């Protein structure tokens, strides 16, 4: 079984975040059988120069979602994630990973029901991190 790497695109609906020095957005995934995809993505906001962008945050998937799941009437849940606020434990939190069929990307639902945005649960800052695990079916061989 081969581990593949991909470069997730981290976007904001009101403006894309800009990584600071040493920052990174990385992803890895495997295929099983071969329609199942298991993946990890990590965001490290980096240091000097980081800008949070605006709006709802999204991440790209490594390969396309299978059409049947793509046709769900509301956003399917495909994984779990954790946002680490480097400066405060209180605003570090787990979030459910959802898939938005309209744009073909992941987004993240907080415990209070709203999405992970550039302002909530906190404005991301230098040194913050996000780790994401997801599993979903794809028709891409």
């Amino acid at each position, binding site marked *: 079984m081969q581990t593949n790497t991909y470069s997730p695109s981290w976007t904001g609906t009101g403006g894309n975040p800009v990584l600071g020095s040493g920052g990174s957005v990385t992803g890895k995934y495997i295929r*099983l*059988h071969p*329609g*199942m995809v298991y993946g990890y993505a990590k965001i490290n906001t980096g240091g000097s120069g980081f800008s949070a962008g605006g709006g709802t945050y999204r991440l790209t998937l490594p390969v396309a979602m*299978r059409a*049947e*799941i793509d046709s*769900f*009437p*509301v*956003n*399917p*849940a*495909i*994984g*779990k994630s954790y946002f680490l606020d480097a400066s405060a434990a209180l605003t570090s939190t787990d979030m*459910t*990973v*959802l898939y938005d069929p309209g744009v073909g990307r992941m987004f993240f*639902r907080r*415990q*209070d*029901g*709203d*999405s992970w945005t550039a302002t909530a649960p906190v404005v991301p800052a230098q040194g913050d991190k996000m780790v994401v695990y997801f*599993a*979903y*079916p794809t*028709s891409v061989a």
Partner: protein
Amino acid sequence: MVLSLIDPLGSNFLKDFPGQNLINLDKIDAAAGPSLATQPLRSFVPTFIGGGGLNPYIGTDGVNIAYYYKIWDHVYAWGEVIFGAGWTVGLGTYILELPFEYDSFLNLGSGISSSPVVGQGWVQDASSSAGRLPLTVHQRETNRLMFGVRLESSAINRDLRDSGYITWAQGDGFIWNAQFKVKETP
């Protein structure tokens, strides 16, 4: 899972190897089932149950769909329940009955404390993002799922049900995924 692949056709290892290999591969195919086929994603309709004795009704245009991918004895499933026109809320803990049988060694109970978390979900509140709250997905008994509500939700119950976590309305529902081991069927 253990497959017996030793079924000698003859004593000549080199000469008999192709036939033996074919038998072994057929055994592996049979054990893996549809996961090796070209169309491995399959669908089912869970039975939507109210644990209080009155089942909810999703309505005439409601949604209760699920897809699964079975790899050996593990099932990976995604599903949604959405209330449509004419829906009724039912009574008690919301349970989904699945067309699989869990492995009995798990010794699952019916309460949330004896039903391990096997997935994530969330409540679809069509009218308010504040109501789109997370769920934990639990496997219980021999073939069922139930759903746990979040910490400090103010609901007096620990599980998703007809009332408490959300006041249900048309267009509301819940979304879930789960990964679990089923009884081996080689």
